[in-house]
């Protein structure tokens, strides 16, 4: 039997639900950030850094960052397994797809670790 070995939850149903919940978290965070810009038309450093200094916001940012990573991986996995197959790329499709996916994982890891440094550093 062929098994899924590269998708996030090793199960389509699990990926499906993770994608939806992470989407809601990302939408909520995006709207919060948009709202904070709307409420502070003349954003200065004091206001900007005080928004991200609060512990609740730090937690929200970290949760969102984790949701973003899961969301991005499920999305890129879905795209690469849909459009980077032997149908489009021929015999070496698996090689290119795995290389592409490895690149995505590397990029997502950089975003995650760098993001944690930004939100939780200092």
């Amino acid at each position: 039997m062929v098994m899924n070995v590269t998708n996030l939850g090793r199960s389509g149903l699990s990926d499906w639900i993770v994608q939806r919940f992470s989407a809601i978290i990302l939408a909520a965070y995006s709207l919060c950030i948009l709202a904070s810009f709307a409420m502070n038309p003349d954003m200065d450093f004091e206001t900007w850094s005080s928004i991200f200094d609060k512990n609740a916001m730090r937690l929200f940012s970290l949760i969102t960052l984790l949701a973003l990573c899961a969301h991005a991986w499920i999305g890129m996995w879905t795209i690469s397994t849909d459009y980077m197959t032997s149908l489009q790329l021929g015999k070496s499709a698996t090689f290119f797809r795995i290389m592409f996916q490895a690149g995505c994982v590397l990029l997502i890891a950089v975003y995650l670790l760098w993001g944690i440094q930004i939100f939780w550093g200092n």
Partner: protein
Amino acid sequence: MLYLLELSLQSESGFALVQELLSNVLIKFIAWAVLAGLLYHLIAGMKHLLMDLGFGETLRGGFVGACITLALSAAAIIVAGVWIW
């Protein structure tokens, strides 16, 4: 984008540098393009979730939903452009 976020939160001078960078027309355009993609993804994603909940799951509903998504996205992207400039 992460670099700009880091810079803006690091220090007051970093924040000023980001403001200065964002006054450059090319950077403004890049920021707008990124924001445009994000807004469209956000609105199309909301439509997707609504359809998962069973709203508009007909041929006609799908067409109307797609039209609303495109119209809302276009409006949001224009507003974002105005806000940036």
